[in-house]
């Protein structure tokens, strides 16, 4: 992780104790036209474009209360600065959880993961933050607090600000309070893994997931040195390109049946599946969640593609950097790659000239999750194209943040 001061040009940092204080700070900043950089746990400040204008840091760590937790309704209302671990600890008391894998959970805040729309391997079975935020409060760029949604799991009153703010990188409003729907913790969890010699072999196994009768929580393809000697997956011998990993969760009989069914299914396809030992299961989930932020790769990208096209895209990345680390949420068509070599011509050129067109060819897109020289990157390189809806996004931004103060210059807007 890069130091805060290197990432944000801050003149000062304020830490409001509650929503009212936060609103007042933003109002004053609006009058003075001071840019504002919301800071949750500081774990994703290298996500997005590097800001160029000095501004005010708005530390959210003071807003961390649990407002209401009616466990029988399976909803929880919390302030946005709560850390993911603290949220998980509250929910664990009632054997519930937010079933989304998030890196740096001890530090990352809920508001931050919503603003960045972070998700992980369990996306296949459980979706993303977009599916769990049912109520939201935020302070827009003029210092006006607004709410959307509510505290009930089914609600279509008004426009869905929960969706609009998820993934908006705090550019429409500083998220202050959130209501989530949560789920019961599953009784049991297990993995089936199968090493593969090449991408074609991986694709055969992954394609078989289309017809499987099992209900996986995660369908992953792991490639590269980071996974070559994993405690749960064992040593990957030379000549094998990676490992397909499928995670199951549910009751003990459900999981046992699904493990044995997939085992047999992959055997029939000529694979050699193994069950990950029970005592390694939790560790593997953690490593899957931590992958994008671990280590010191020069560039981390995330592609969203049609699932059937992930292998083609991965082949292209491996040509650019044969020793890169890859975690593909293959069932969903996501590819996260950590690259350290990218040839000559500059990193923006690589992204705009090679990786983005390759993703577009598969109906997808590429964004940059982090880069160790952020100032070198262009908007097009980091976010790609917003397509023909870009002008609507910019119009929404203008109406929620007319002076362009919130995370100025960091998101996908043009200009």
């Amino acid at each position, binding site marked *: 992780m890069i130091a805060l001061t290197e990432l944000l040009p801050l003149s000062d940092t304020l830490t409001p104790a509650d929503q009212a204080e936060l609103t007042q700070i933003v109002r004053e900043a609006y009058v003075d036209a001071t840019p504002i950089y919301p800071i949750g746990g500081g774990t994703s400040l290298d996500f997005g474009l590097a800001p160029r204008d000095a501004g005010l840091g708005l530390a959210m760590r003071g807003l961390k209360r649990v407002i209401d937790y*009616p*466990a*029988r*309704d399976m*909803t929880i209302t919390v302030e946005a600065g709560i850390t993911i671990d603290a949220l998980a600890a509250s929910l664990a008391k009632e054997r519930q959880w937010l079933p989304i894998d998030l890196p740096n959970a001890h530090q990352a805040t809920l508001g931050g993961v919503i603003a960045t*729309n972070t998700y992980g391997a369990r996306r296949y079975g459980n*979706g993303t933050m*977009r*599916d769990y935020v049912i109520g939201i409060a935020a302070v827009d760029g003029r210092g*006006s*607090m*607004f709410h*959307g949604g*509510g*505290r*009930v*799991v*089914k*609600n*279509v*009153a*008004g*426009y*869905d*600000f929960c*969706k*609009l703010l*998820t*993934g*908006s990188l705090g550019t429409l409003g500083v998220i202050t309070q959130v209501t989530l729907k949560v789920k*019961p*913790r599953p009784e049991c969890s297990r993995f089936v893994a199968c090493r593969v010699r090449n991408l074609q072999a991986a694709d055969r196994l992954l394609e078989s997931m289309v017809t499987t*009768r099992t*209900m996986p929580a995660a369908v992953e393809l792991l490639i590269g040195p980071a996974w070559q000697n994993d405690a749960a997956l064992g040593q990957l011998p030379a000549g094998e390109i990676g490992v397909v990993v499928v995670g199951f969760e*549910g*009751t003990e*009989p*459900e999981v*046992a*049946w*699904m493990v044995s069914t997939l085992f047999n299914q992959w055997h029939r396809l000529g694979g050699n599946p193994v069950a990950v030992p029970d005592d390694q299961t939790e560790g593997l989930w953690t490593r899957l969640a931590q992958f994008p932020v671990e280590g010191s790769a020069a560039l981390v990208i995330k592609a969203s593609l*049609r*699932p*059937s096209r992930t292998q083609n895209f991965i082949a292209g990345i491996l040509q650019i950097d044969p020793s890169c680390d890859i975690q593909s949420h293959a069932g969903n*068509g*996501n590819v996260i790659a950590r690259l350290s070599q990218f040839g000559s011509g500059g990193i923006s050129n690589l992204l705009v000239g090679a990786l983005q067109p390759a993703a577009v060819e*598969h*109906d997808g*897109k590429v*964004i940059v999750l982090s880069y160790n020289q952020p100032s070198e990157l262009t908007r097009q390189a980091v976010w790609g*194209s917003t397509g*023909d*809806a870009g002008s*609507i*996004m910019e*119009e*929404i931004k203008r*109406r*929620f943040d007319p002076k362009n103060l919130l995370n100025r210059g960091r998101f*996908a807007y043009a200009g």
Partner: protein
Amino acid sequence: MSAATLPNLVDELRGVVGFDGVLAAHADLVVYECDGFVIEKNCPDVVVFPRTSQQVADIVRLANKHGVPFVPRGAGTSLAGGCLPVGGGVMIVLTRMKAIEEINLRDRYAIVQPGVVNAWLNQALKGTGYHYAPDPSSQGACTIGGNVATNSGGPHTLKYGVTVNHVLGVEAVLPDGRIVQVGGPTEDSAGLDLVGAIVGSEGTLAIVTKAWVRLTRDPEGCRTMLGVYDSVDDASNTISEIIGAGIIPAALEMMDQGILVAVEQAFNFGFPLDAQAILLIEVDGVEAGLDAQRDRIIELCKKCGAREVRQAKDAAERLLLWKCRKQAFGAVGRLSPSYCTQDGVVPRTKLPHISRRIREIGEKYSVRIVNVFHAGDGNIHPILLFDERDPEQIMRVLAASTEILDECINCGGSVTGEHGIGVEKIGFMHKMFTIEDIDAMERLRMAFNPDGRLSPCKMLPTAGACGMEQNGKPHEKAIVQIRPGRRAAL
């Protein structure tokens, strides 16, 4: 619309969609004067049936050129007046855009045009091992475009979520006539989540002309049970107990005695007519875990006072049971000439409280109320029975509805779980949201729909209807139609 403008517009619309794609005679237009919310009605000036996205865009441009409002409509099954043509103008009926353009199992999506009836997609998917999960009760008639506009739910929302959880992307015509695509066959949109903004926007931000929808693997099996209760409270408590035990059923529906009688008369399922409530409970997933879940649910039902718990003995009985549930609203026709279905939501744990309050409110206003609930997610559908020929009865029904929905808000809930605000519930928006919230919603709407010509006077109490102004004054028709108190009632 002025008498001088209309003939020109009709001619130009015929130029876009052909002679048979335009209705302009009053007798034809009456069919389109309302949706399932029958209390307020207004005829459009012209109805047009496009077959392509480009035709929709051309129609929108023509409406803009003539300065008249326009409103999209699917099958017209919505229940809050979402496609009521306030101010007249052009109604764009999308039912001729009914192609399923692609089904892609490997990548788990389908591309559908907006006029595809919800149930058609699942018929097309039969035998593939996949289905489209959102299943509103009107799925035999409602269109997927309409589902996208209202973010519809259905009995299986509890486990599988509402429409927005299953929409990957949309192609839409913006109010200025541009065609845009947001999202698509892959899972993450670039930039802001405009798919999330458009789904559920009740046709006020854009007209959806195509949708990429997520396909869901069929569960290997299911168990369907029927808990029979002597009290609504016991049935309501069972819901909390099941969820509290960590079981998320695929569906958890409640019917009270009033509706049970109507359903039994219609379908002869064999429901015990003396029961005060029944719970329809379904769990699905891999076979291996289902018997254990079923046993646990039966145990919890009995613990909460169920006098018996039946199981659907085969697929045919399960289908009949679901038919009874899904056509419950139709069966209400046996009870009274007219009915008004409400769509409140409360936290699940407040179901016993709201059930009691609904009974009290019914007694207070001398209105007979029967109930069918998506109880698992707290979405209640009290059905208020009346005779629309009697204005006094209508006033009592409206007053009782208002009190029920106010109580939902007091419980921390919402006035709509799946049917939307439309024109019916605009008066509740200020009760649920602050002035700042509504201002923010207005700003979002203006970003898409700055002239207010698309679906004016819907959803937001301040919803600008610039397109309906004449010489700087609001259009007379709009004001008459939108006034609280309901023209039909008066």
